[in-house]
């Protein structure tokens, strides 16, 4: 099997070969590859730009791999601020000895994911590091988009909180894929590009106030941040939050809360109550949005608290994910 060697990163012949065989051929961006930097024209609009590094373990998991995640993640970050994703760059740090066929699979799925939404991957970089100084492969992606909808986060009392589907899928899929826990589950990561779904929602309502993709830290952490940043109090209804049974089961066993598990293909939105149905219908018309649901309400424009109404009729306050999960019950 062909593997990455240190020479693949020295800028010489092997490096050129690798770039030509793997990246240029798959990303089909030979136009830009001839120059030191990519050049392109964008409409004279407000732009959005984001960058993110991906270090997920394992690199391949049910429902995706690190490449798909890296492209989808950056496209999603652009999409939730109301931008049309246009171009992106990617940078690889590869451990010596990494199988080239695996690299090809990863790059292939990056290309596919980008193509779905006509995003061009216009520049890239590859570094090879010695065996042991990286865990297989890391990817960094940077993306630029053109703002199509200026979101005005003027959140009002009575606004609805909508999530586009079940939460915690990615978190559980990764735990299972690591194989360390002996957990058995058919759950797949929800890793996907959200742009088409979000575009549909934006078409359906001009008044979507705010969107977030609840990745690390889960739905709860994303909403706590919204509550604090905008000083609003949101009350979620536990029973209305979609959680797949397998996710629920795994969480019960591990003592985790699905609201804190990572998602890679979900968007949470705040919309005016009267637009709720239109947005919901738009989301549900797409396969990734089938399980979209209204999960809560903006209760007040003060305090900045995220509350969870339990099925027993009591209320809990939720905080950001903390690394420290020690029992508090005496």
């Amino acid at each position: 099997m062909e593997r990455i060697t240190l020479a693949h990163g020295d800028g010489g012949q092997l490096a050129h070969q690798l770039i030509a065989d793997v990246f240029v051929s798959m990303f089909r961006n030979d136009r830009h590859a001839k120059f030191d930097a990519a050049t392109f024209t964008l409409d004279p609009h407000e732009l959005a730009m984001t960058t993110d590094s991906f270090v997920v373990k394992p690199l391949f998991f049910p429902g995706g791999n690190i490449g798909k995640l890296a492209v989808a993640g950056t496209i999603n970050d652009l999409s939730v601020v109301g931008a049309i994703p246009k171009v992106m760059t990617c940078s690889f740090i590869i451990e010596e000895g990494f199988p080239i066929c695996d690299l090809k699979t990863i790059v292939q799925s990056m290309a596919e994911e980008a193509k779905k939404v006509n995003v061009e991957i216009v520049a890239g970089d590859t570094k090879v590091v010695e065996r042991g100084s990286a865990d297989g492969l890391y990817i960094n992606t940077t993306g630029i988009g053109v703002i199509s909808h200026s979101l005005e986060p003027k959140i009002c009392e009575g606004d609805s909180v909508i999530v586009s589907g079940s939460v915690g899928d990615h978190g559980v899929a990764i735990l299972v894929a690591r194989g360390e826990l002996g957990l058995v589950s058919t759950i797949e990561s929800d890793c996907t590009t959200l742009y088409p779904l979000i575009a549909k929602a934006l078409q359906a309502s001009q008044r979507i106030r705010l969107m977030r993709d609840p990745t690390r830290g889960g739905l709860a952490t994303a909403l706590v941040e919204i509550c604090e940043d905008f000083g609003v109090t949101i009350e979620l209804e536990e029973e209305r939050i979609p959680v797949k049974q397998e996710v629920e089961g795994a969480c019960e066993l591990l003592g985790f809360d699905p609201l804190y598990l990572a998602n890679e293909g979900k968007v949470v939105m705040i919309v005016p109550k009267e637009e709720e149905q239109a947005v919901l219908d738009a989301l549900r018309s797409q396969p990734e949005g089938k399980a979209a649901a209204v999960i809560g309400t903006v209760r007040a424009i003060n305090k900045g608290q995220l509350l969870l109404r339990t099925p027993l009729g009591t209320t809990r306050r939720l905080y950001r994910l903390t690394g420290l999960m020690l029992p508090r019950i005496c």
Partner: protein
Amino acid sequence: MQKAVNITVKGRVQGVGFRPFIFALAQRYQVKGTVQNNMDGVFIHIEGDAYAVDQFIHSLPMEAPRLSRIDEIIVTLAQWQAFEHFSIIPSERTGSSSLVIPIDTAVCEDCLREMYDPDDRRYRYPFINCTQCGPRYTIIEQLPYDRPFTSMRSFQMCERCAKEYEDPMNRRHHAQPIACPTCGPSVALLKRDGQTVQGDAIQQAKQYIRAGAIVAVKGLGGYHLACDATNEQAVQQLRMRKRRPHRPLAIMAASLDIVEQLCHVTAEEKQLFISPEAPIVVVKKRKNTMIAPSVAPGLQTVGVMLPYTPLHHLLLDDRLPVVVMTSANRSGVPMIYEDDQALRDLQGIADYFLVHNRPIVHPIDDSVVQVENGKIHFIRRARGFVPDPLETKYDVHEIVALGGQQKNVFAFGRHHQIFLGPHIGDLEHVEVVEHFQREYEHLRTWMGVTPKTIAVDLHPNYETWNIAKQWNADIVAVQHHHAHMVSCMEENHIHSSCFGLILDGTGYGEDGHIWGFELLYGNASQYKRLGHLTYTPLPGGERCIKEPWRTAVGMLGHYFGEQGYALAEKRFTERAQEIRVLKQMIEKGLHSPLAGTCGRLFDAVSAFLYVCTHSTYDGEAAVRLSEFIDDTKIYKTYPFQIKKQDEWEIDLAEMWQAIWEDVEAHEQVNIIAGRFHETVVQASVELVRLALQQYPTYERNIVLSGGSMHNRYIVKRLRQELSKLGLCVYTHQKVPCNDGGLALGQLIIAAHRRDRVCV
């Protein structure tokens, strides 16, 4: 010779018939002057014959009313003012407030006699009261305690009541909640839709309860849910509707005779039943009792109280001798006390609502006590005791202690007084945090102090941190078990260093692990840990507390490795697959915090013996395990080891081995449970013995604290065995040994740290 003096009486002197008592005393000794309530207590000016004045001063503390408690009497010579009479004058609302908030008490004998007298104008009146009984804390809006500042202010006294109220010789003189059928509050029985049921409300409610219905009853400190305690079906129905599968329910019996028919009652327990505080007393059920099994399933004991309001007395009698009387709330949130909330939140739980129109200002739960070593032992300190202050030798002024996460109680320091607030509950719920803030704010206003120092438990995730950070004050973080220890020291007036044996549930330790089985030595300023139970993992974290079988897996795995997991799989066969995952979690250190706690140890053994693998209420696994043993016996101990690291560590591998062998040999659960209890005792005692050996100069006092000290066998045996080592053994009698007593210790510790900072 003539003499004039001013007398200030501090303590619990308002709302307890103090001024009429002073008036009568003045009449007796023929002295003139005035008596008045003010923010400081009761202020008296008397003048007359010098000998009579001295007699007056002498008799005052000797004959004070039963509900009063005098903390201080200050007598100063005064100017002669030539009064012609002795009179009671209106309250003065100025002055620094050191007065005590009066507490609620059970209806007194005199009032009951009148209530059952067909010729009395308050015949069968459910709100009869006098200066010696009735509502106080629960109806007070502002201090000092005076009718216009209570929820009785909307009831205009009728002429006859007003006359009694004004008459200094009447036993209702200045009884602020004075009322009669003409002018006072009234009861009504409502259907679920809020419609009134026609007829005598109480009699109708009684009929419905007898027929198996569940009736919400508005009492003194909040709503209860009542049903016939002898009707198994009704009790099961209540459990189902309240979603409370096992947690024992309190009952109310019509009379002490009935209690004695149902339960074994000792002389000390009898005293508690009939005391003015009228708490729930946990007593042993008789065999073949008519109490429905579902009231306290699987338990030998039951919590019983006597009727404490006139309304309760009218509801219960020979035709309805015993009812379940459990506080009405959604599980984990505060007791319901407002009428509209009751109608809304108890839809689907209560069939009828027995309500009245005297608003409850401050909800308060029933106190729960048991007798231990002939003395009162608090499980919950609330109605009848709160907010009566404790005196301390330390200056605790302007310190607030926020208590624990669960069974929360906060404490307020004013000069040398400590006010423990009401039982607040579990701060997990927002409703409880709001309740905390409301009650805290009231008490703060009443005290007239602003906290400068706040004591908070060390646990970084306790809700109390969020409360503390909102205020502008110094925060002192206090280790959980140090607070337990100092709480017990303080109430026993131990001020120099001593040992503290803390057997508890879970508390955050200085090393970031979970503590709860510690031997400490120290005082309020500092302590050191001498020994503890070996740490074992809790796979799934907090989930272990609801699922004790997990804790058992963690312990077996820790002590015996592969063999231990295999044993766990054998014991919890249906969980074999999950156990394999837990094993991986433990080995990878994923969400498996380390803990050495007595509460979790009880859980693990309880689960291993199949007594309780899933817990539905606080401490269920431990409570049900201890129900198997006979606390009049002494069991044999299992073997164990104490290893010396930096600190001593109790290693229970040998005990687990022996338990397993006993299980294999089909030994009875009660024997195994008994031996386990004794092992906890012996391991603790051995730890202390080693410490005494190594540190011969240490003071020979030891305090016992922590939630596991509710266990009668453990406490009794520890007392016996530790005494044999020459130690004086101290336990809690004023505050609970559980987290309900935590704030007291936190407050004293904060007082010491603050002083150190200042010096």
